[in-house]
Structures are given as C-alpha cells and as structure tokens.
C-alpha cells in the first residue's frame, strides 16, 4: 500500500466517522480531482473506429476537394492581417453581387476566423476550419455616429478586420478615419456587411443591436467563402490579399 492510497483511506474513513458522529442527514463527500493519475493511455474503441470509418472516408474525400489556389499564406498575424483583409474583401464583394447593395464597410471579428489559409491549394476542409460556425451574413444600416462608434470600438479593441474603412489611432484613441477614402458625412446612411453573431451584440458590440437590418440572409459565411473562391477559380484568379494600411495603431 503506497502513501497516496493510505492517505485516501484515512481521509475516507474520517469522512464517514464524521458523518456518523454528527448523525446528520447531510451527505459526506470526497474528491479525487487528480487527472494525471487516471490509469493508462486510453485507446480508441476499435468497433467505434470501424463504424466511423465509412463516414470518415466520405468526409475526407469531400473536405479534400481543391477549390482554389492562394498566392500566399493568408495568416492572422498582425492587427491588420492578410486573412482578415481577404475575408472582408470577399464579404463586401459578395453582398454587392448577391444583393446589389453598395456596401460601405465590411467587418469580421478576428476571433471568428478559426484557422489560417495556406499558400497553394485551398481545400473545402480549409474553409470549414476557417469558418466552422454557422454564422449568417447580415447587412446593417449605420448612421454617421454609428460609424464613429464602430471606428472607436475597433481602435480600442483591435480585434477586427475591415474592408472599406481606414483607421489611424494613437494610445487607443481614434485619431483619423475614412470610409471609401472620404470623411464620414452627417446625415448619410452607411451599409455594413457583417455576420449575425456580431450584429446581435456578440464580442461586446452591443452598440450594433437594434440598428436597422437591411438584409437578414440565411447565407452562411462559410458558403459565401466557398462560392466566391470557386467563382474566382473558374475565372482563372488566385486568392490574394495585401497589408495596405487599413488599420494603423501607435
């Protein structure tokens, strides 16, 4: 009998004796929250592996389908990042094509992009990993003060990617920004391409809740990406993005 089990037995016995001494209906309780101690490595259950196998083959076949080629690795490195610029550009372009709406700004939360895209072949699986959640494409109407709030939020949090807007901030303060190269005009309505998670106040974007919804689509962000990449490929175009000073923070 080793020391650990000796301590456990003593503890166990003393818990029970306490229980009976008090003659209380309250239950005694013992924890053994030691995870490393859990026996040996657990193998997969063979019959389950067999059962899953045909599902897995079909899935891997489908996920392995190449839908495009990327000129470079589209990563999430940096506050302004290649992947975010790529996705928000695609989102803007898609809404313009699909709904015929002149989108001013397109955003995504960097946390919502769950994996990066590699240089070279892009598979369906890559896009599922990038966008595993079933988030829907939404278009919101913003007034000039809402656009300012958005720019201030982005400057403070630095967790968003954007297309259509340029921001310059210092010490978490918004210093300068423009939409499509112009200052924001009072009285003008701006269209924002976004996903339903953020539009419903996710990632602390409460200020977006209750804004007028121009388009509440049932199109998944993932399906949007797949469709656009396939379209570009059929036109002989590769995937690409540049860091071009959309967000500069000092």
């Amino acid at each position, binding site marked *: *009998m080793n020391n650990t089990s*000796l301590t456990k*037995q*003593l503890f*166990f*016995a*003393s*818990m*029970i*004796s306490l*229980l*009976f*001494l008090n*003659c209380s*209906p*309250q*239950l*005694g*309780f*013992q*924890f*053994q*929250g*030691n*995870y*490393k101690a*859990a*026996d040996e*490595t*657990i*193998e*997969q*259950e063979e*019959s*389950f*592996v067999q*059962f*899953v196998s045909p*599902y*897995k083959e*079909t*899935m891997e076949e*489908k*996920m392995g389908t190449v839908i495009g080629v990327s000129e470079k690795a589209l990563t999430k490195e940096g506050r302004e990042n290649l992947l975010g610029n790529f996705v928000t550009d695609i989102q803007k372009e898609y809404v313009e094509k699909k709904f015929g709406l002149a989108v001013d700004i397109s955003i995504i939360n960097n946390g919502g992009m769950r994996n990066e895209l590699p240089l070279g072949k892009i598979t369906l*699986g890559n896009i*599922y990993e990038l966008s*595993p*959640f*079933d988030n*829907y494409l939404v278009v919101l109407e913003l007034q000039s003060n809402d656009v300012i709030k958005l720019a201030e939020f982005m400057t403070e949090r630095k967790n968003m990617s954007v297309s259509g807007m340029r921001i310059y901030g210092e010490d978490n303060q918004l210093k300068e920004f423009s939409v499509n190269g112009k200052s924001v005009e009072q009285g003008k309505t701006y269209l924002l391409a976004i996903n*339903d998670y953020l539009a*419903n*106040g996710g990632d602390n974007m409460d200020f977006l809740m209750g804004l007028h919804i121009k388009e509440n689509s*049932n199109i998944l962000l*993932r399906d949007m990406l797949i469709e656009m990449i396939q379209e570009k490929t059929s036109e002989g175009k590769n995937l690409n993005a540049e860091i071009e000073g959309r967000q500069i923070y000092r």
Partner: protein
Amino acid sequence: MQRRSFLKNSILTGLGLSIGDSVMALSSLKASSKSITIIHTNDIHSRIEPFPNDGGRNANQGGMTKLASLVNKVRSDSDNVLLLDSGDFFQGTPYFNLYRGELELKLMSQMGYDASTLGNHEFDNGLEGILQQLEHAKFEILSSNYDFSDTILKEAFRPFKIFKKSGIKIGVFALGISLEGLVGSKNYGKTKYLDPVEVAKEMIEELKRNRCDLIICLSHLGYSYRSEKIDDLKLASQVSGIDLILGGHTHTFLDEPTLVKNAEGHTTIVNQVGTGALRLGKLDFEFSNSDKITFASSRNLTIY
C-alpha cells in the same frame, strides 16, 4: 440504532489503531450499502475522433472513439452505471456539417447513454434539424423548460425520467439556456422559454412525489456568470432538493466538483467536464439500507 453505534465505534477504533482496521471497517460498511455510479459528459461538440495530431495542447486526446473505451472500462468495474450528457453534442467538426448530427447520436446510442438534453447548438439547423435527427437517438433527450407545444417538436421530449438501479430511484430532469440572442430566432421559432428556477422547483416536487432517492439536473445553463444571468451555482443556491447538477455550455474544466450549500442547508454537487470528450466525470454515490445517500465521491477522468 444499535447497528449505527457499532459502526461508529468500530470506525473510530480503526482510526486509532491501524490502517488495516479502518479498511475493514470501511468494507463492512460498503457491504451493507448500495452504490450508483454516475458518469457524464457535456459539450462533446461533434468530436467524433480525438483532436487532430497537430501539436496543439489537446492533440490525440478526447473524442467519442476514445470515450467509448473509457465508458466500457467504467462499466466493467461498476454495476449500477448511469451515463448522462448535458447537451451541445452537435457542432464543432465537419462531421456535423456533413451528416447533421446523425453520427454523434448513433455513437452516443452505441455507448449506451441513458439521457442527454438540448444545448443551444442543437438548434443550429433549426427545429427541423433536430426533428430529422431524433430517430438516431436511442436514449432519452430530456427538456423541462423549453415549451415546444406550438412547434414541430410538440411532445418530442419528456420533462423528466426516473431510472431504477438496484431499487434506487434516480430522477433526472433537464434545464436549457435562454435562446434569445444566442440562437438565431428563425432556428427556434415559437419555442417558449420557461423560467429555470420555477421549473426546477416543479420538477423536484414531482420527482419527490415519485419517491426518488437521487435527483439529478442536466443543465445547459452554464457554470457561473458575474451578471444576474441564471447559472448552475445560482440554481443550486436558489433551489433546494437537487443532489447533483451536471452542467455544460461554459466548457468549464472543473478540477473537482463544487459543493453549494444553500440558505436552507441543502447541499448540491455541481460538476462540469470541459468539452470535446476530453474528460469523463465520475461520481459514486453510496446509499444506506433505507436508500438514503450516505456518501458521494468523485473522480473526473481524463481521456488522453
């Protein structure tokens, strides 16, 4: 009463003497009692296989194919096992996107789950998406506080179920999280959300009327929030009568269960085991001859 005082004395003597004696006292107690083993998961999130071998911190760990081995192992060691889940078995890997939950429910059925409940991600393909997959679940999916009566899921779920193991009656009910703002409104339609605290009180009353010896709540409310939002800890402090809350939603890896003693003196055990079948919660309950809980112990197991 005589027997009780004998036990008390022998245990105290045992402690004063040697380990050998205390172990004997222990085993004599165990022989006269019944035991129930509760094993449980939450937020499996379509983790059919272990996490991919990509150098990440969970690489090769978790997943339902490994979980099945561990469940078998526990079953071979214990007689009265109840396998429970607290929801969000859907969504998280392409298996869900492609097969819409069929594989998750089939594997849970094969593992012999006794009951689960609806997490918010079960609504990811709408009410239709739940209805289409229900035939694959050969276990009980419980829901006590979603009112589906005006929807296509009318009468699809029971609010509670009573399991009998060696004469011990275990009452299980299930509480879901408020869907508004969390799930797209078109995905839950005319589902009505009922107050978890009020529903819990009704369920406890009902289960006690049915003379349950152990009352378990499968919860997808979440472990703890700083805000006023209801969570497992608040539920335990506001409601008396739940012995065990098996939680989910917040993907909380509790190193050991939390004991909540409320103002009325009732103690509830709250446990939650992360996500992705990376852990299996295990709680052993001992019952006296009169089927009262005398002792509980816990050891959450890692699936690596």
